[in-house]
């Protein structure tokens, strides 16, 4: 795969006919050149990096991942202490990134859809409020919005000793929102399993109801039975588990609230910022998707006697979704990547932890490679899932 045959041939061969004039050969040769150039550039960069790092006596390699991190992290989904390794610290950061991304994507979708529908509302006030929201939010840089949310939370809320207590056991202060949770008990895992089972059951009921509709032409209500098993199964599991009622209440102890679950100001600010910002874009996508379904179909459905809800559910949405999914996928990707701005307001996401690691170890190249590969993996995973979903709802054409 060298350059020579191509250049040699292009100089000597006649302009038409022969193997240089063959478009298939030409395409192959061009691709070969492209590959060769990429390989050369990659080799040049990598070998240069290794040589320069060696000359500057900078350590290289990933051996540091096993060494003790010896810095603290405020929010962890898994157990972590400063005497754990850099590798585990990075895993903690990654989980924090995934936490805010997943919760953010769900909430942004809900808020974005609501705002998108509101913009199409015939209510003047509602549609214009929605419009003002979209225009305001999507034209302000996200970093500013994050700093705004963070400042609002830390500057306006009182200290932990003067916390607001809207409900017994609920504390709202500049240390975050603390609320009680049940004590850890195996019965709760059992109940969670029951809930999962109930969801599967609901899908079964729905499939049965659809078959029934196709066979008999009569719709069967599934809402009530579904609700029944969604509540009943977990409750039964909880009873079998011994019906524990212990509650882990947050309490003021020393400087801070101890116990319960705390939504920290950092998490709340990054989540609010990402959700509000991304929802503005999703709202526009939802609106354009709905508007793209021709109005004649709505009129035809009305003429057939379908209700407005049925029109939305059966006619408009299934077609609009096909238009909405691909651009919404890129918004999900944006949200996941924008979560890296969290470092500005102190949320310990992957970037924050990797920045600290980079600084303590002085090994920037290795950490930047880690950065890129992790975000690439997250993005590809989101894209793969959304492509699968898109194919699932795509119009089946024969």
């Amino acid at each position, binding site marked *: 795969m060298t350059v020579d045959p191509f250049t040699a041939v292009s100089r000597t061969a006649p302009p038409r006919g022969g193997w240089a004039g063959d478009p298939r050969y030409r395409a192959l040769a061009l691709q070969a050149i492209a590959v060769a150039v990429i390989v050369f550039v990659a080799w040049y960069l990598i070998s*240069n990096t290794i040589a320069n790092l060696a000359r500057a006596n900078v350590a290289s390699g990933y051996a540091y991942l096993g060494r003790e991190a010896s810095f*603290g992290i*405020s929010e962890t989904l898994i157990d972590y202490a400063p005497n754990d390794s850099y590798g585990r610290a990075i895993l903690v950061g990654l989980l924090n990134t995934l936490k805010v991304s997943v919760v953010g994507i769900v909430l942004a979708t809900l808020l974005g859809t609501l705002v998108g529908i509101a913009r199409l509302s015939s209510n003047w006030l509602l549609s214009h409020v929605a419009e003002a929201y979209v225009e305001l939010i999507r034209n302000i840089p996200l*970093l500013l919005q994050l700093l705004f949310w963070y400042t609002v939370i830390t500057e306006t809320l009182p200290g932990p000793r003067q916390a607001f207590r809207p409900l017994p056991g609920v504390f709202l202060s500049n*240390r975050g929102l603390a609320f009680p949770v049940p004590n850890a008990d195996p019965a709760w895992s059992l109940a969670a399993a029951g809930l999962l089972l109930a969801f599967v059951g609901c899908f079964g009921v729905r499939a049965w109801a659809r078959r029934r509709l196709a066979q008999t032409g009569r719709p069967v209500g599934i809402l009530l039975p579904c609700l029944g098993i969604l509540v009943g199964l977990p409750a039964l599991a909880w009873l079998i588990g011994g019906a524990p009622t212990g509650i882990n209440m947050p309490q003021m102890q020393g*400087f801070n609230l101890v116990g319960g679950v705390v939504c920290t100001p950092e998490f709340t600010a990054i989540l609010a910022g990402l959700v509000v910002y991304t929802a503005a874009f999703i709202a526009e996508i939802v609106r354009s998707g709905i508007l793209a379904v021709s109005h004649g179909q709505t009129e035809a459905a009305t003429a057939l006697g379908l209700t407005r809800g049925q029109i939305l559910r059966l006619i408009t949405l299934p077609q609009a979704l096909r238009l909405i999914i691909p651009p919404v996928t890129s918004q999900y990707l944006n949200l996941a990547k924008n979560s890296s701005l969290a*470092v500005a307001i102190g949320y310990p996401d992957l970037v924050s932890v990797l920045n600290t690691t980079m600084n303590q170890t002085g090994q920037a190249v290795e950490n930047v490679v880690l950065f890129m590969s992790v975000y690439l993996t997250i993005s590809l995973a989101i894209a793969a899932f959304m492509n699968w979903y898109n194919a699932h709802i795509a119009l089946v054409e024969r």
Partner: protein
Amino acid sequence: MKSISLCSIAFSVALTTVAGSAMAATTLEAVKARGSVQCGVNVGLPGFSAPDSTGKWSGLDVDYCRAVAAAVLGDAKKVSYIPLSAQQRFQALQSGEVDLLSRNTTWTLSRDTSTGFNFAPTTFYDGQGFMVAKSLGVKSAKDLNGATVCVQQGTTTELNLADYFRANGMTFKPVVIEQVDQTFDTFFSGRCDVVTDDSSALASERASAAKKPDDYLILPEIISKEPLAPAVRQGDDKWFAIVKWAVFATFDAEEKGISSANVDDFVKNSKDPDIQRILGVSPGLGAALGVDEKWAYNIIKQVGNYGEIFERNVGVNTPLKLERGLNAQWNKGGLIYAPPLR
């Protein structure tokens, strides 16, 4: 902020990957050809390095940038200041973006080895402390169990904090923020019970950023040694020697009583051969370093001796109100000591 730092990391990595030719020339040649010293400084730490309203930089760290420029180029003004966050600074020096890092950086073993740096003599002996609101009623760092602590990212501070709480069997919640001003703003807003940093930085931020400086207390415990020193890349011993002796020249000048005010007198009247050598009246030292014979004269004339630099930027008459303490000359009970300049 974030985008700037990511950008600079990307840029630095890019430099690391392709800057083979640029780094081949020695730093001294590059500085002379460019006509200025590229100096990495703090983005804003009053007393050490901070720009004033006209964009003019001042501070103790800044003065050592100026001293090196005076020694090498004969003019202390020939410095390009590159403000760097704590976590940008190492890549900036590794990649050659700056010639000299004079940015309240603690000299540690791993930075001297695996990070690839050489440290010039310590220009400020510091130690890490804690600052709390007086209303908290805390008198000692030992009472901080369970506290929420604001800390700047990418510093030895972050590690010392974890070590200190571990050693004393206490727990804490860190709030780790990238920029130093943002870290202190967050603390002053009440998000954290405590903020930790080098005690000079605590004094600096209390004087410059707190709405009511008297509401805050710096706790008596100093939990670490923080010798702050300028750093250069490994592999260029000549440049390292220039930076090292530029620092020593300010130490030695103070010890001998030579200041910016009286240095011309010394040049004209001094019969002391030691002083004549230092000020370039009898040549030799400049040639040994590869710079002008007037190198130390230029430093003292344009920047001053160590005592002048200290008092001007962080001393008792500045908002920081710092005593000399460990930073006094060796013969006055401090650690400032220069080997013979001969």
